[in-house]
Every structure is written in C-alpha cells, then in structure tokens.
C-alpha cells in the first residue's frame, strides 16, 4: 500500500472540493481498502466522509431519501423500506455478508468496482485499470462477465445488488457539487457502458459527492429480487433480477425489471417493461420478454450459460410475480 494522507470532511462541499483536487472519498472502505492494498486504487489523499450528516432515511415527496452514509444493514432493516420497497431490502440482503453490510454504505455500494479477475490482478493487462493496455478477460476466463452492452475494450460487469433493485424502482442519485448545487441522476443512467472508456464506471465527475438516493413513491405490487450465485451466500450474482410488477384484472398493470450480472451497469430495458404492460401473463409472454431482453446478448465462452440462465430465471420471477404457478 502506498502512503497517503488522511483527513475528515466537515461539510459536503469540502469533500467535493477535495475530490476535485484528486482525493478519494472513503465511506465504509469495504471496497476501496481492498483495492488500495492491491494498489489498483492509488489515492494520495483519502477524505473520510463518515462524519457528514448523510446517515438518515427521511420521507420526501411521498418517497424516501436515503442518505449516502446509511449502511446497507440499516437500509435493509428500515421498516418503511421493508414495507414499501421490499425489493430493495431483499437485494441488499442478497449481497455480501452481515459484516460487510454493517460497514458498506449506500453511496459506496453504488460506486463499487467490478470483480473482473483481471482487473484485480495488476500483472495482467486491463483497460479499466490501465487504459489502452488491453482486456485480458476477452481471451481469458470470463465466466462472470457481461453478455449485454459490452465492448471490445471491456466485458466487465457491475457486480452490485442494491443498484439493481434501485434501477427497477427507478430511484434517483442525488449528487452535490463543489458550489453546493445538486443534480439528480436516475440510477438507470448513473452507471455507464464501457464503450472505449471502460476506466469510467459511472457519471460521477471529480468534484462531486453522492449525498443520497431518492426513491419515488411506493409502486406496490409484487417486488422480488432473485439472485443466482455459485454458493448460497457471499458470492456475487451470476445473474440477478429485480422485479416490481402490479396486476389488475388479470393483466399486468405495471412492470419494471432490472438485471444484475449481465452488463457493465444494472441492466434495464424499457422494451421489456413495455412488452409486459397490459398483457395477460403466460409462459409465451415470458418467453417473448426474454427474447426481447436477450436479442443482442452475446457470450464470450465461459459465460455463454448466462443467456439460457437469464431466460429460465426470468420465467421463474415472472411466474412468481404474476401468481402463475412454478
């Protein structure tokens, strides 16, 4: 680990100034410190934001505003979240472990970096870590990699769970700038596709700090989070699906689906939601939805299985959400 200076931010604008000047924010540290030990992240300055007053969940415009420093554990345990946004509580609880969730924060979780094996290995080329060096995953072991939206530069996935549920809920990320101004970015647009700049995971700019995630008013309906992984806990998603779906008179009155483990961002495809809307649930419809979702999917060898897996699991989720029997 390289030497770095450490300070505590006293105000959001102060933290924003520091990141403008190249400092790194540290919240729970559960991702950043691992990466620093491996010298994949090499900040000269660390700014601890844990003293900022961003640790509460408050009601706002019929929805909820979750402070950036609310821990994953606290968020998943919040009565209002569990009642009105169960998909979010479920997604969080499907991630990591108790110990990690106790430290992990809402803002940090959004910004967690990919788990691509080659990204983690400084001795292997990786465009995300070292732009222009090449992508080792393309000709290597890519079992956990993307099948949607990847590029020739990078086929990594965004590994998190929480943001997949937030994408299904169409939540917004509240971002403060150095001058104190606030912008609001839909979670669906917060993470980027790799294109030819895979070094950038999301749209956060230097000089910006995430202050909150804002949930719209509750959507109701069935809210499911389904995560397929290699062991029962403490593993990242091979495929995950967040589903918010309402039924009226035997027809789908509201559908919002987001997918984890498939792309460089939580994947949301409006065409899938639109296809389901107003239709009577049936296996044929579910297959159609999968076909729309996966029309452009492509595997890279070891991850080919994700295509049929997504199709099968989507069917399980839609059957459950619409009350069709398993």
């Amino acid at each position, binding site marked *: 680990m390289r030497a770095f200076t450490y300070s505590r931010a006293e105000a959001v604008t102060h933290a924003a100034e520091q990141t403008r000047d190249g400092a790194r924010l540290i919240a729970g540290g559960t991702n950043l410190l691992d990466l620093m030990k491996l010298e994949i992240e090499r900040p000269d300055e660390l700014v601890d934001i844990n003293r900022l007053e961003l640790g509460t969940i408050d009601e706002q415009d019929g929805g909820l505003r979750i402070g950036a420093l609310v821990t994953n554990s606290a968020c998943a345990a919040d009565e209002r979240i569990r009642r009105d946004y169960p998909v979010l509580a479920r997604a969080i609880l499907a991630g990591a472990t108790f110990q990690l969730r106790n430290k992990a924060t809402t803002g940090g979780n959004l910004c967690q970096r990919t788990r691509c*094996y080659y990204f983690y290995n400084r001795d292997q080329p990786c465009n995300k870590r070292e732009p222009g060096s090449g992508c080792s995953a393309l000709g290597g072991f890519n079992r956990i990699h993307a099948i949607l939206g990847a590029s020739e530069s990078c086929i990594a996935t965004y590994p998190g769970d929480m943001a997949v549920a937030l994408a299904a809920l169409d939540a917004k990320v509240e971002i403060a700038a150095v001058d104190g101004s606030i912008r609001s970015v839909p979670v669906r647009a917060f993470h980027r596709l790799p294109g030819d700049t895979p070094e950038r995971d999301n749209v956060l700019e230097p000089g910006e700090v995430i202050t909150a995630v804002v949930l719209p008013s509750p959507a109701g309906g069935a809210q499911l989070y389904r995560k*397929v992984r*290699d062991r*029962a806990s403490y593993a990242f998603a091979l495929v995950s699906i967040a589903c918010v779906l309402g039924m009226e008179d035997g027809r789908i009155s509201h559908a919002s689906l987001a997918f984890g483990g498939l792309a460089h961002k939580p994947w949301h495809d409006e065409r899938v939601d639109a296809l389901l809307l107003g239709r009577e649930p049936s296996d044929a419809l579910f297959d159609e939805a999968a076909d729309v979702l996966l029309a452009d999917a492509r595997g890279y060898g070891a991850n080919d299985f994700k295509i049929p897996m997504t199709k099968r*699991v989507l*069917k*399980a989720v839609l059957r459950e959400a619409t009350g069709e029997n398993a």
Partner: protein
Amino acid sequence: MTRSLTMDEPDERNRLDAMAQGVIGKPLDRPEGPLKVSGSATYAAEYRYKIPGCVEGVLVTATIARGEVTLLDESSVRDLPGFIAVISDERMIARPAQGGAGESPVRKVREVQYYGQPIALVVAETFEQARHAAKHLKVEYREEPDALVDPADERATFEPFEDPTIQGDLEGSMRQAAHAVDVIYTTEGHNSAAMEPHASIAQWDGETLTLYSSLQMLRFNRKELADALGIEPEKVHLLSPYVGGGFGSKLGISPEGVAAAVAAIRLGRPVRVVMLRQQVFQCVMRRSETRQRLRLAADAEGRLIGFGHEAWVSNLPEEEFAEPVLQASEFLYPGENRVLDLQLARVHRVTAGSVRAPGEAVGMQALEAAMDELAEASGIDPVELRLRNIPERHPSEDIPYSSRKLEECLRSGAERFGWDKGPRRPCQRREGEWWIGSGMATATRVHNLNEAHARVTLRGDGTAEVASDMTDIGTGTYAVLGQIAAEMLGLDPAAVDVKLGDTAFPPGSGSGGSWGASSTGSAVFEACEGIREELARKLGCAEAGLTLKDGHAVSGNRKVPLADLLEGRDVEEIGHFKPGKIAEAFAAAMYGAFFTEVAVNAYSGEVRIRRFTGAFSLGRVLNEKTATSQCMGGMVWGIGSALTEDLVFDPRDGHIVNPDLAEYHLPVNLDVPHLDVLLVEERDPAGSPLQSKGVGELGICGAAGAIANAIYNACGVRPRSFPITPDKLLPGLPEV
C-alpha cells in the same frame, strides 16, 4: 529412558480399555480452546510483537510461466520509504517442500518454472512498505515462449507415474458383464486455503536459527530448512505451537521461511515474512486437477468382475508427487480383472502436492459417482450394491483387511438417514421450484502411521507433562495426547500439560495423512507404559496388577496417592513408536458411508444440501468431540469439492485467476446444513497400539460423490465434472 515400540503385528492387548480413569474417548474440550477464541494463542506471525527490531519481508513472485530472471533492479525501489533490501539468494527456495521430504525443495529462484514462483524478497521497515516495494521492484526476464501450462493442451504428454496394476482381462470382463459402466469424470484443482496464511519469523543467535513458523511436521521441516540453508539440523530451532490450519499446505517448508532466514542472516536482524493471501494460492501447493476413467463390470447380481480406474494428473517438472488418485481403488472393491493406472503430465503450474486426503478426496468422489451409475444400470439399490461388493481379501495383494466396519457404516448410516430402498428414478420429487433427491457413497481412506517420539514426565507432585515436537493444526492434538496420558496414568486430564510444536522436544510424527493422533499418541502410550512399570516397582507389585486412578496407585488393597509414591521425584520416559511391518501385513483403512438429500433449483440449477449424514468407523475414538469435528470438517470439504471449489488457471500463462477467498469459493455457513455424524464403535488391533486409526481426512473421501449422486437423483443430470456449478446443470435440466 527411551522405550521403543515397533508395530510388526496387531496389538491385541487393548490396554486402553483395561485402564481405570475412564477419560479415553470422552468428548473433552480442547485445553487451548479458550486461548484460541480469546485471541491469546500466539501464532507464528504474532511473535513479531515480542521480538524487538524485527523487519518485514514480502516475496516477489514471477509474472511469467517459464524463463529466467535477468534483472532485479534494486534502484527501482531503493528510494521508497522504509526500504531495506532486495534479496535473491542461491539458498532461497522456489517451491514448497513435499510432505515428508526432509530435504530442500528446488531452489533456483531465478529460473522461473511457473507463474507466481518466488524470485526475490523485498525487506522494509513495515509490512505495508515491503508490500509496496515488492510490487514495484523492476524485474526483467528472458521468457521462454509457449510454456506448457495446461494439461488439457494437446502438447501435454502423460507418462505412467508408477507401475500400473494389470490383472486378468478388464476389456473381456467389460464385454461379458451383465452391467457395465465406462465413464470419464473430471475434477478441478483445489487450494488448501487454511485460515492462517503461511508465515515465518527468523532470528539468528550466532549460528543458531530460531524460526517461528506455521508448519505441520517439524522433524522433517527442520531438515528441509537446514538443507536449504546449508547448516546442521541441530542448528535449527523451530516453533509452531499453534497452526491455523494446514490441510497439507504446511507439511513441508514453504518459500517464506527460507527467505526470512536468509534475509535475517544478511541483515543481522530478525525478519518476518507473511505470505499475502494471493501468494498462498500462487506459490504454495495445489491439488492437481484430475481426469479419471472408470470402468466397472458387474455380473447380474451386481458383483464386480472387472474394475478399471485410470487417472491423469499433473505436476511441475522435477516434483516426485502425483495426486494418488487410485489409492482407495487398490483395495475397496473386488474385481479379478483390474487396471489401475496413474499418469502424470509435467506442466508449468504451481507445485501440486498434498491437499487434505490426497488421492481419496478426488478419487473416491469419482469412483462413488461411477458406482451410482452402476447401481442405476443394474437396477440395484446403491447401498445394496456396495454391500455386495465388500471383498474377502485385498483384490491384488495376498493380505487380509484389518478391522473393517464398512457394512456397519452402510447399514447404520442408512438407518439413521432413513434411506429409501425403493426403486430409484430421477425427477420424482418436487417441492415448489426445487427438485429433491437423495444419494449415498462409501467413504474410505488408507490408514497411515509414522514414526514418533514423545516424552512423558510424571512430576513429583502427581501431575504430568507430555512433550513432543508434534503439532496441533487445529485438530485437537493437545486434547487427545493429554487424554491418552491421563488414561494411562490415572490422572484428571486437567493435571496433564501438553507441550507441542517445538523442536526442543522429542520429534513427533507431525500432522499429516491422518496419522498424528495414532502415531504420536502411541509414543505417549509407550512412555506411559514405562512410567507405569516404574510405579509398579515403587509400589512393589507387578505392572499388570497396578491400577492408576484419580491420582492414586492401587494394587490389591493398597491405595497410595501418586505424590506420596513419588516422594517428590519426577519419573520421565520417552516413548518411541515405529510403524514396523504391520502396514505390509494388513490392508488397514478407515471406512464410512455418506447419505445426503439435496435440492436442485429447477430454474437456475443452484444446489442446496438439505441433510447430510456420515457414519464412520475409525478404530477407537480417542475423543468423541474432536473426532466428530474432524468428520464434519471433512464433509464441509466434500461440499466444496462437489459444488464450489475450482482453482482456475489462465490458459495463456498459467496464472491462478481466482487467488483469493472472494472468488475461490469455499462453502460458507449457508451452504452447510446440520451435519449428522455417527461414529461406529470399533477397535482395530492392527491400527495402532491404541486400537485407533486415522480420523482427519476420512470425512471428505467420497462425500462429493454422494452429493453428485443426490443431484442426479433429484434432477436427472450428471455433469461428470466437479465442481457441479449451476452452469453445468442447466443444459440437462428439464425445460421450465
């Protein structure tokens, strides 16, 4: 005095059962347990805080598969904070020593034979500084192109590792068989992944080296270190009082120990070297991947008439180890027509060596899965099929079995589990999204013994001390050795101090091959026999007429407190146990049976184990609690081997793709159901003078086979490729 006991024939005396204290076998707690759970047991790396002036070294590892280091550019790191030295020395070792080697492994650190090989050590004031400098040291290589890193590469050539067993006409028997199975199974590499990473602190006092290290077999490790360093073994003092798991990876010395010792001489200061977790994966030890062909030919009743097991494994050039996949296949099943053939390819991947239950761990899982296929082909219940295939005598050598309670394990395990003997067809039971199925397998593991010494002192105050350089790698050796002495000397186990893990004590067997308790325990037993004779002499009776209980010596109607009998003087004996010829006279092994119920998700192919029963016969159980825990640990390993553990090598340069505990998936709590362990009562006079056999490794041997069989029974898919991850099940699962 030293008393020797050589085991040339079965020990029918069964002395332990004749003792009076009644503590042997009891589920006693580990005496060191409170130290461990309170963080006050000192592990190797933690001695740093007791050693002033100690500095830190971090290994630098190769980033090519094969070639030569042409430059280690010290100037690239000289100005980094805290930097002290770059050391790359003739004496440093490039690989770990194989278990029991007793000599230095391959040195030549500048000649790169695998990706991840240690090539140098960087020393700095703090660990963080050393790690940083190690990452930034500029290294240049002359790389040999196209190194063979993958045994699946078509250029790989396999050669017989030992003489194959060829008996009768296997192919003919396959043709004649009423039921035959000819299948290929594969298993992937494994890493021991002990919780405590390999770590050493070296400190020189003149010509004498003291090394605090995390090692399993000190009497061999001492010689290995001495050989590497070019000094006499007597000049090496090793300390490993607590070891945070070894599972084979600490049988031999590993590169950090020698590097620490070399650096400490060069710098004239104590040096600590702790391996990074990634290094534990990259440069210690792997279990070889295996490809295994099983040919089973049975008559109409399911009795084996032909048995073939061929295996292909890999290792680095110059290593004398090949995963002994066929070890159990030598003796478990009958079949007069036999082929057993182990083939080895040389590839440039990290050293392959012993990982818990080398051989049976992967051989039995494939064999038992193939047996399930035979059960299906013949329509015979899998338990019944195994009962019909218990041979009278060793199928290839003209020797009998020692005590073998396989049948009892199969029957009692089946009963405990509630095994359904009805016809077995896959995809019969569904609960919601889950297919439910059951499966079983036999467990077996060869019984090993090893030479051992232990000193027992009955102190003048009537308490005792046991001392040996034996290690306790988390298995319960402290508890078990104390229990043996307590039983033999009629003491409360709390009155027995057990001192281990220090080469200042007589050389024990070390921990490996499940031989620790039976071998070093027999040395303790023998020392106690000597003390008993001395006490009988003092009491004026024959040893046979002496009863020792609760700190008293009793003979006829005389009962004397030990402290009075000893008159304040210690009685000391060293017991020396030698395995002798018994191993050639009997096929001695531990046996068991696994029964499991699993659920397979019909959509995703995820597997959950719902119930898991293991019935085991291990000879005499010396401590019910530690034995049960060992069996459970083995079963957890079986779950990992069946479902999750997969050491992935990059096909291009052979580096390990997933060298950490986030991506090398060990089973976690949620993967492990309640484990139901049943210990079947047994005494094996050919096992050891204690009538005990090995325990530690049995629980893994076959466990993964039972799980694979249950998966098939649940959902109708047999991937024949371990670990059975969801992607391997998907293509065969019924449509949803």
